[in-house]
């Protein structure tokens, strides 16, 4: 197919869309994100319907620490920006800068995850365990699904960094990087709704 139609060594303007395989990957990933929207939407729906069922456990208002959430949000938002810079570097065919921005993204993602783990640890000590109530189960499931997505993203982008440093940027690696960037933005978008619906609305009494 079209994998070999380009002159070796000269990368096209948007290398992620240069081959049919690349375009398939990008489109397939967009559709996958549509499915992920439903996945998180259903998790949100479950959380919304169960969030008042706290039994003897602490309420959302009592539990959540907005300072922590604000820091986590700032970190994840910034990592979204750095992943945009990575894609820009890719379009400029600057592999070094691309790898650099990806590393920054991974580090920010890891610190977000660290904060989240600390947060969960803290909540469990406050008597808000996974099995405490329907509220706690749905809370940990929703936020935990997001956290698992972040973890997966970190591992994925790390693998891409290794591949980029070994194989360089070409029409095979470019779509992978582009798609990982989309994934990272999507995680950020989901987080926007998590901090809005779970944390901020939980604080409104």
């Amino acid at each position, binding site marked *: 197919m*079209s994998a070999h139609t380009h002159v070796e060594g000269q990368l*096209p*303007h*948007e290398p992620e*869309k*240069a081959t*049919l395989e690349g*375009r398939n990957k990008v*489109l397939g990933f*967009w*559709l996958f*994100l*549509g*499915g*992920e*929207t*439903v996945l*998180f*939407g*259903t998790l*949100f*729906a*479950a959380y*919304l*319907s169960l969030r008042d069922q706290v039994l003897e456990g602490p309420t959302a208002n009592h539990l959540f620490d*907005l300072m922590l959430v*604000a820091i986590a*949000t*700032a970190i994840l*938002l*910034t990592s*979204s*920006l750095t*992943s*945009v*810079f990575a894609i*820009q570097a890719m*379009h*400029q065919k600057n592999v070094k800068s691309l790898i650099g921005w990806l590393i920054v993204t991974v580090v920010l993602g890891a610190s977000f995850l660290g904060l989240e783990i600390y947060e969960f640890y803290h909540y469990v000590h406050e008597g808000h365990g996974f099995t405490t109530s329907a509220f706690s189960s749905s809370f940990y499931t929703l936020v935990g699904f997001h956290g698992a997505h972040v973890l997966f993203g970190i591992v994925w982008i790390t693998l891409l960094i290794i591949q980029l440093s070994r194989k360089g940027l070409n029409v095979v690696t470019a779509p992978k990087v582009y798609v990982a960037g*989309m994934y990272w*933005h*999507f995680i*950020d*978008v989901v987080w*926007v*709704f998590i*901090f*809005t*619906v779970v944390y*901020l*609305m939980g*604080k*409104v*009494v």
Partner: protein
Amino acid sequence: MASNHGAAEQRTKHHKVEGPKKHVVAFIFSILLTFIAFATVISGEINKDFIYVILMGTAFLQVFVQMAFWMHMKDRGHTFAIIGILFGVVIVFTAVIMAEYWVWW
């Protein structure tokens, strides 16, 4: 293939690589919206329903900004991406309505 020449057209059209400026603007916009949301809740003096409206408003605005600029959804060739995400959002809405009105009564 239909999508084939679309990509070729794009390639010849604007070879200029976009600068980081508009992404930084989008970022500042996002931070601002996040700040408004947090500030509204922390101030706590306002009517509850009004807070909800502001929160959802800022959230959707922020998502729109990020999807349009960072995920390039406003660019050409994203028809099916937009259909996919929008249809997902429609289903999410029905699910949320279900959760709010038809689970407990």
